[in-house]
């Protein structure tokens, strides 16, 4: 018997993690939700082919972030969750984030409505996560996710020890006291080149975000 989330019938949920015991542990919550878990053993196919495969056997997915372990997957969980989202397939990214992984996830954050800490993954958070995705596909954003055109101020532009260029920006309409670090790849190069400390520009940002890790940026205007 499938369950219904936001008017979509969900019968099976794919579970994507490089470790079989972890996948197994996620199955507990999925089963309690009344849905059949599908454990995705690796190695996974290339991104688009894999998305297509999963769509055929499940109606939603839960994936870990660190998937590029051994030969399990050629992509990471953020890329995967974003690809699912773009094909209107609900996915919950389940990972314990820390500052570095926020940077890596930021370029995909616009397409990841549901990021759940593994400690908090349970039937309820899975259901809410799937629901948030489906509603966004229909243009209904949660307050924390709705993007608004807003002013962004550049505080600093620096290159890290690893050679990645980061922008440090303040979004006054979100929190005028917090500096947000952005990997430069999320900004079009022609705009990035013109930016320096003190520059101001517009972008669409989810101003209702509760924390730094929830913020996403899109549609930059120079």
């Amino acid at each position, binding site marked *: 018997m499938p369950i219904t989330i936001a008017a979509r019938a969900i019968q099976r949920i794919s579970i994507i993690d490089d470790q079989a015991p972890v996948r197994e542990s996620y199955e507990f919550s999925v089963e309690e939700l009344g849905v059949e878990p599908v454990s995705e053993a690796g190695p996974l196919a290339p991104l688009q082919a894999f998305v297509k495969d999963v769509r055929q056997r499940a109606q939603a997915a839960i994936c870990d972030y660190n998937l590029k372990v051994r030969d399990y997957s050629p992509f990471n969980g953020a890329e995967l969750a974003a690809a699912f989202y773009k094909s209107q397939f609900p996915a919950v990214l389940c990972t*314990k984030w820390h500052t570095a992984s926020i940077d890596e996830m930021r370029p995909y954050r616009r397409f990841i409505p549901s990021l759940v800490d593994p400690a908090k993954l349970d039937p309820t958070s899975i259901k809410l996560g799937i629901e948030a995705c489906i509603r966004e596909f229909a243009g209904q954003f949660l307050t924390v996710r709705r993007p608004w055109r807003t002013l962004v101020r550049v505080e600093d532009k620096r290159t890290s020890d690893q050679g990645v260029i980061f922008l440090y920006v303040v979004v006054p309409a979100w929190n005028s006291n917090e500096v947000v670090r952005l990997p430069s790849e999320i900004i079009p190069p022609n705009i990035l080149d013109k930016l320096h400390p003190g520059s101001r520009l517009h972008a669409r940002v989810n101003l209702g975000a509760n924390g730094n890790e929830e913020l996403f940026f899109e549609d930059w205007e120079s």
Partner: protein
Amino acid sequence: MDNAHFRFSSDILRRLGEELNPSVEHGIVELAKNAYDADATEFTVTLQNVEKPGGALVITDNGDGMNVDEIKGGWLVIGQSRKSGLKRTGKGRIPAGYKGLGRLAALRLGEHATVVTRPKSQKTQHELTIDWKAFDKAKLVEDVDLSIITALRPSGSEQGTEVRIENLRSAVSQAEVRRLARALILLADPFGDTEGSFKPVLIAPEFEGIAKLVRTRYLGEADYHLIAAVNAKGHARASVVDWKGKVLFKATHKRLAADRAGARYECPPAEFDFWNFILRKETFIGRTATLQDVRSWLEEVGGVHLYQNDLRVSPYGNPENDWLDINLRRVQSPEERPSTNNSIGKIVVQDENFTLIQKTDRSGFIETETFRELKAFANDALEWMARERIAVANKRRERQRTAAPRKVHQAKERLDKAIQTAPKASRTKLRKAVQAYAQQTGREVESLKKEVQLYRTLSTAGITAATFAHESSGNPIKIIQQSINAIQRRGQQHLDAKYDSVLGKPVASILKSVDTLGVLGAATLSLIDHDKRRATAVNLHKVIKDLLETFDPFLKGHDIALELTLAESKPCVSGSEAAIESVLTNLINNSVAAFEFAGTRARRLRIETTVDDDQFQLTVTDNGPGIQGIPKKDIWLPGITTRPHGTGLGLTIVRDTVADLGGQVDALVKSKLGGAQIMVKLPLVSA
């Protein structure tokens, strides 16, 4: 039944030509490629009064010309791909076979265009005039008739084709002329050792300047010349030679393709030459070229140019086009790596079957697997060269390190000789003074060596912790967490009121332990975040609160009651978050270790901050055993510890870090709480 056809609005010609090939040089380069296909050896572009609208472009070649059928069935057909099945030309060239969109764009630069073509070994010539106004007026492309007038060739005229584009709609700017000149010069690989048979020329002063630069060829001055090739079987090889021609490194396919487990490169045969210059004054001493010459030359023609069957494919190697991510690699790992400013290169691909397919708008190749493989070959060759060079640099450093003691010895001999020259009476005095100095320095060096070794050991411990932090914060904890949560949910559901008495306690105890365990990973990963080492104004209370939040489950797990009192303000110091974190982390670790060592019960850890004028004080106090078995002044010394597995470095790091921040440390052997108290004073800055 009615027959019907698609018909095209005459506006489509404008769109196809101008929107797909927006620049002057694209269009003219395509005419040059037509000339190449017609076996021309010369291709000349003359600009007439182009500084303002109304000027003209005259383009001539000495190729095979066209007959009427070729004009009608080829030259006037737009968008037809003629690549497949084309035979080599009489000169053995592989025809580029272009679709005609660029040609259309070029012809439309003016209000009318005239083509006069004189076919090889014929006495006639054919003339075709295109008046674009007629198309602007007509509704459909087919409504405009074009006539080809055939006449006898004037005596003395050579075979070939001349295209006159007149009444130019807009002026051609100097920048466009410059780009055109560069595109024409680079079109037919000017970097080869043998001069090519096809020479495009632009009659303009800009052209001469650039052509001269290219002819000068500083390639022989390159400090490193990478020569790599991949053959038809997909096997690659490479070598690097220096400016004297000496082979520095050599690699087989296995070595180059090591990162891809030796897999062959699925691309057409290609040769990759890459010249890297060390642009420093000292490396140019004694050479014929000057540093400035080479710099301006690289600026003009630098980049890695890509040639498909002897003709260049734009935009690879254009200014700002770093298609092999050379600069990115350098930024990621700067040592011994080239940048686009100090290098030049070319990749010549023999691709008779056109497996690399150009995009219709001429913005390069379609990103197919074949193209990615070609890039992989080039990238692997560059990466290999960088690794070889780094290995050499490491050896050089090693040599310097071993040479250092020898140099000290030599300096000592010189000093002894100098003392010999002093008056006899003061020699003994001088020798004693020098000896005392040497002893003191020796002690310092010894202690530094020990300290360095200790730091290395602890760094290794840190690296190991960080490596395992990923693992422990990852899988085992995740699995325990998920499983215990499931037990809790299912237990509550099935046991109802009995749950608490049956499972409540053990489940709660596991949940608490998992939280404690999680701190190891979280705290370690949080400490190594590179952004925290950034020098800035650090908001002290924020760092303290964040750190204590991370440690919270750990402190609870060790039954430590935290008493936190923060001053009522927002104090900031100039430094890095990492510095403040390392001070507080070490102080907490110190207290926790003292509790564990002494078996303290009812553990209390008090963290207080006070702000007084321009000074901030952090005080960490515990109710452990206090400072015992060691003089207070020695607690800051490296390697000094009273605990069996202690490193004796925690408080040294605190002292050194605080000193770096311009502050001071102090300690109380026994505080009011009963244990040790450490005070850290830091000078404040305004936020």
